[in-house]
């Protein structure tokens, strides 16, 4: 039995090595000077380690790209969660004509793949004169996500009706009920949705790529892709860029890994 366990550990460790090695190599290269990389072996350890590549990113406008990405992610996170909570509460806890029909429409939109909306959304943004603006980055995702609404509705329905009735008797308004009763009872699903939203928005690429141009509203993924095609051979600089693009989420992941793992299983989507 123990030798069997040893085999399991060896296989798990091989998996871990295959997972980590590319990240480790990229990280090391990002601290290697371009000169050492070009003259020595690309795989040798940085000697001495240098921050020159990261300083080079600052010159390439990555500071602004990080800021744009962070603000975009924050705006979408806050507004999408707020509006999703509002809609989910209406679907879960209120009774009004048209409710079930509308919910069915929301559910149907889950079948629309993200890739399918890119071309028509581009035309719509162009017609509204919003190409290459901050609004174009955030507008399509701000007003709530049908998937978040669906999950929140399930969760809100499981909150005991007595809890809400008691608050009502004390004269609480709908807003009070949501803020003081429903949200505290739904903390775990809210953390889950927040994580999923941050991951998918921070990483989003295709939409920012098509709807922005130039450096004013360039997000981190677009800046990284641009850097790679501009400086194809300067791998030390490019590896610094991929590190910057990935590190914030890796830190979040290290802090909240367990939550993220649960979130993925609960939501099943990115």
């Amino acid at each position, binding site marked *: 039995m123990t030798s069997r*366990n040893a085999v*399991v*550990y060896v*296989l*798990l460790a091989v*998996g*871990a090595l295959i997972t*980590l090695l590319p*990240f480790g*190599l990229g990280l090391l290269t990002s601290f290697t000077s371009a000169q050492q990389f070009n003259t020595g072996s*690309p*795989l040798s350890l940085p000697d001495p380690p240098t921050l020159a590549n990261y300083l080079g990113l600052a010159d390439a406008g990555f500071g602004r790209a990080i800021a744009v990405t962070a603000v975009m992610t924050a705006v979408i996170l806050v507004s999408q969660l707020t*509006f999703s909570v*509002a*809609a989910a509460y*209406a679907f879960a806890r*209120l*009774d*009004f004509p048209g409710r079930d029909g*509308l919910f069915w*429409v929301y559910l149907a*939109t889950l079948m*629309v793949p*993200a*890739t*399918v*909306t*890119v071309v*028509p959304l*581009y*035309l*719509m943004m162009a017609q509204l004169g919003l190409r290459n603006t901050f609004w174009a980055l955030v507008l*399509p995702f701000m*007003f*709530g996500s*049908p998937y978040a609404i669906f999950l929140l509705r399930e969760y809100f329905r499981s909150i005991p009706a007595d809890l809400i009735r008691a608050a009502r008797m004390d004269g609480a308004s709908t807003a009070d009920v949501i803020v003081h009763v429903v949200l505290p009872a739904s903390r775990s699903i809210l953390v889950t949705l927040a994580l999923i939203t941050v991951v998918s928005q921070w*990483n989003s*690429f*295709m939409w920012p*790529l*098509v709807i922005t141009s130039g450096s004013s509203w360039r997000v*981190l*993924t677009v800046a*990284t*892709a641009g850097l*790679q095609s501009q400086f194809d051979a300067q*791998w030390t600089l*490019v590896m610094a*860029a*991929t590190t910057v*693009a*990935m590190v914030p989420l*890796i830190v979040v992941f290290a802090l909240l*890994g*367990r939550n*993220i*793992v649960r979130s*993925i*299983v609960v939501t*099943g989507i990115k």
Partner: protein
Amino acid sequence: MQHRRFRDTATGYALLAPSLFGVALFLLLPMLVVGWLSLQNWDLLGPIRFAGLDNWRSVLTDADFGRSLLATAGFVALVVPLQTALGLVAAALLARGLPGTGFFRTLYVLPWICSPLAIAVLWRWILAPTDGAISTAVGHRIEWLTDPALALPVVSAVTVWTNVGYVTLFFLAGLLGIPADVQNAARLDGAGGWQRFRHITLPMLRPTLFFVLVTGIVSAAQVFDTVYALTGGGPQGRTDLIAHRIYTEAFGTAAVGRAAVMTLILFALLLGVTVIQHLYFRKRVSYDLT
């Protein structure tokens, strides 16, 4: 009572208003717009002109588009079975519950939460023919991304590397959901390891397996970032997957009408997959053994 109903209706629509606006404008309207756009000619900047069925005719007879569909099918056929099999193996190893398992489980998901674009750029260096990590380690040039025979399998491998941890999570949840009693009873009846896997584990994992396959197909059929950064669709269009073709058509050659046609074809194909999923889940056999 009447009063309360009126109040609920007013509150309900007030709460729904923002998301209703978003769903109507950014999910439903685009579906109408893309249908309309498929009948127009537009070059991103100039005026939009009615084109009738020209775009449909030209896309349906376009050899490049056919090649792109084939490449996408090949990609899905490589990625989905591989990531499913590896995910199942990893989950079976993790499900033994040895100490430290949680660490490995979390670690394996790492590539999946990172930006696919950044990951593709990272792999582009690792696979680079002269100064890349693999070529340096091996000591000679390998044209991973420019050899027409290698490019699609390599892009598939990078995608599998990214997704395995994610697939593993679902299989692990499924495996841990199988009651130990059932396995023990089979063991007492003399069933061996393979027999238990074949006749108990696999049937009880069927809903998970189906979920993993369907979501795997739907997401693999839309892969864009990885192709964009690794190969740009080359060599000779071997990795020109459909999402990348749509992008190139709309924003490279500025044939937006043709891109709209391709978008609708992709949508129809994915809708087919999703509908099959829903039919399945409605009829799915329940393995509630209580």
